[in-house]
């Protein structure tokens, strides 16, 4: 017993003294949990000598955490894998705006906040995946067309708790209004092949397996499946095609991963250095090649796979609106009882 108490005390002392470090650091709260990201950060440390400390969790819980921590927060930078949470962080007063030439040059206007509160790092498209056997791409056109009777019992899509579904619906609320978006969601629910279940990959597999004919999913996971080590997965994904909807009206829905400087950042200079670093060509091409995401930097080409799908029109919408209307989207999903 005594030994245990003594060792506990020792532990506390180590904790207390171990914190007095004076090296150059930048502290990052991120909801991106990919190995490619860690490689990038390690590379940054190697080049600059600045240590990057990372906390990884869900975007919204990181926001809750920063709110609770207030001005004492240690976070200098906040990264999420969706625009909605960046906007929430901005409107909750957790971020600060910066005017930075490098960032403005590397990132196109539509992929960063107008006021400089957050900046896009990578982009993904929410596309329609269809069965090559049973569906001809001529039958596909827009997200709106999915309410058509011919799709009754044919559509596969994830649950309402998925942030990319929320963002897709938010974009409809933003462009068409609440009622029309709700109407869309309730008809889609009727047209589903099954109640929402599984992850993104599971939707594509379900198309291959014939449970449904089309699925709404993320380009990122299609890339992951095509280059999977699992021969069965790669052969399943060969049975599906990728379709970019709304090319003639409105564009395909995209979402971004992005970064923002926190309001109470204590290592501001280092933080901005890291922001710049992540948008430069080197880092951007790593994002593009390792993670099947579209780079935001126009000087960097997407990976061969993404290029093979061709260029596409992206949804013409201010990404901030995804955050603004996220609550409406979640409420609509609840009202139409999407998951049941």
């Amino acid at each position, binding site marked *: *017993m005594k030994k*245990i108490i003594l060792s*506990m005390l020792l532990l506390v002392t180590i*904790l*207390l*003294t171990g*914190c*007095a470090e*004076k090296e150059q650091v930048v502290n990052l709260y991120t909801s991106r*949990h*990919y*190995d490619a990201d860690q490689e990038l950060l390690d590379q940054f440390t190697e080049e600059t000598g600045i240590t990057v*400390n*990372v*906390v*990884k*969790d*869900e*975007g*919204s*819980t990181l*926001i*809750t*955490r920063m709110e*609770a*921590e207030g001005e*004492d*927060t*240690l976070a200098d930078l906040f990264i999420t894998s969706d625009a909605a949470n960046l906007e929430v962080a901005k409107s909750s007063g957790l971020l600060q705006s910066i005017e930075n030439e490098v960032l403005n040059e590397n990132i196109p206007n539509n992929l960063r906040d107008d006021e400089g509160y957050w900046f896009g790092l990578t982009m993904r498209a929410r596309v329609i995946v269809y069965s090559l056997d049973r569906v001809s791409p001529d039958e596909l056109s827009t997200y709106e067309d999915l309410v058509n009777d011919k799709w009754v019992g044919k559509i596969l899509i994830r*649950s*309402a*708790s998925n*942030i990319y579904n*929320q963002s897709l619906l938010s974009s409809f609320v933003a462009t068409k209004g609440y009622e029309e978006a709700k109407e869309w969601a309730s008809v889609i629910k009727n047209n589903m092949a099954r*109640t929402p*279940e*599984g*992850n993104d*990959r*599971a939707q594509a*597999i*379900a198309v*291959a*397996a*014939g*449970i449904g004919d089309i699925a709404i999913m993320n380009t990122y*996971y299609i890339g992951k499946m095509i280059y999977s*080590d*699992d021969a*069965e997965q790669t*052969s*399943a994904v060969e049975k599906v095609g990728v379709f970019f909807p709304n090319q003639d009206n409105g564009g395909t829905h995209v979402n971004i991963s992005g970064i923002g400087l926190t309001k109470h950042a204590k290592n501001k200079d280092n933080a901005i250095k890291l922001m710049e670093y992540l948008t430069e060509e080197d880092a951007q091409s790593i994002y593009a090649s390792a993670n099947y995401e579209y780079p935001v930097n126009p000087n960097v080409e997407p990976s061969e796979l993404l290029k093979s799908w061709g260029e596409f029109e992206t949804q013409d919408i201010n990404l901030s609106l995804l955050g603004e209307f996220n*609550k409406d*989207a*979640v*409420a609509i999903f*609840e*009202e139409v*009882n999407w998951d*049941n």
Partner: protein
Amino acid sequence: MKKDILIWKSLALILLIIVALPILVLLTYIFTPNSEFFKTILENTLFSYIKNTLVLGLFAALVSAILGYSLAYITTYYKFIFSRYMGFLLILPLSIPTYIAGYTYEGMLNYTGVIQSTLRSIGLNLNQEFFNILSMPGAIFIFSITLYPYVYLITKSYLAKQTGSYIETARTLGKSSFSIFRRVILPLSRPAIIAGSTLVLLETLADYAVVTFFGIPTFTSAIFKTWYGLGEHESAIKLALIAMLIVIIILIFEKLLRGRKVYFSSSNTVKVIKKVELKGIHNILATVFTLSVFSFGFLFPILQQIYWAIREVDMFKRVNLLELILRTVSIGLIASVLIIMISLIIANVLRLSKPIYKRLASSVVLLGYSMSGAIIALGTLIIFIFVDRNMVWLYKLFNPNTRTLLFTMSPLILVFAYIIRFLSVGFNGVLSSYEKMGNKYYEASKTMGKNTTKTFFKIDLPLLKIVTINAFILVFIDIIKEVTITLKLRPFNYDTLGTKVYQYATDEMIPVASYPSLVIVLLCIIAIVVTNRLRRQS
């Protein structure tokens, strides 16, 4: 001597208050105004959330109770092929985190999985519905097959220790073995069965990962939708409190069900149960039954994971396994030791108090286990930030450059939250064995002039050793599998085996996740083996 008891009592009281603190903090959120979304949920979907939650929780508890108890019964009283190993093997499913079992089974059964692709290669194309595990029955299966060991472990140790003499008496009275089971063993083991299935129920209710993946809208998914989707942590907390209320109602009902019957063991020498050797068809049935539960609960998912791990062998380079293991084990050990110490202190005081205090304390301890880890994490975070802000003057005496959130950004916050969440797992075991032991040794020791402290160390602790080890192992396994709290509260650059598994699993890289996941399983097995050793030694 009086002073000695007073110290014990106040220590127990302080510990109980600290344990209740995060929940008390959360209770204050009841008074925040209802948001629009909260009303939307109340009006539209609350009923189906509650219905799904109850169906899932109760069926998982029921199936686990049937599986766990029948397995405990068979392995305690009978000999059959492999029965010598089954006693141990049937614990193993507990070492697989439930969500990993869920992901693994889906990966095994889906269109690209090993079963269907094998069938396809021999020209069989079967109905997809047949293989779909992502459903309510599928979820009940996953929870039962991974959590039944709670019932199994608790009832087995109870059967082994408590029923020997009753059975002998019944046998001398010429009762048949079925009538012994129905009239004697089953009624006697009811409290143990209920205690075990309560753990299963609570663990199921707190789950988020499995129900989300399986697409079953339960109360937890509502809580997280509110928090993650809307950033309304206030509404999420309120929903969690409603869930807690439901749990409390169930538990009160359970207490009524259990009644006031307390069985003290009739003699102090544990009668060794003479195992009956099963013959013929009975032998085969028992073997097939135990073997299939073991296969579905452990063998099949593990083989699948080993297969994946071999395929993803590159992962080995990506993960610093040694660091992950050291971190996971050390924080698991520290938290488990603390939980057992706290349990012993509180239980030692409670055994002398009135039943009402016992019930009250058990309920306080149980609150943490009945809530989702994420909500516990939030309560803990609020408290730690408050304490840090008010103690920063003290930290500055040690280190003038200290940051304000010293403990909030340290692993200590994890230890604290683990204690809140898992205390009841350890506490229940310790308290029930105190109850079984009764007060006769304590009273004898007091008459001989020993005070409470001396009695505790010289008499109680040695007698409770085995139960304490059992409770310890359950807690330890729970903590190294834990992931929600760790994700929400971890300091910078802090990965455990659990968070690594979760990271790859949520990124839809289940095969890659098998690496760290298999290590968790291995650690749990080592822990169980060590416990068995210790148990045999004492």
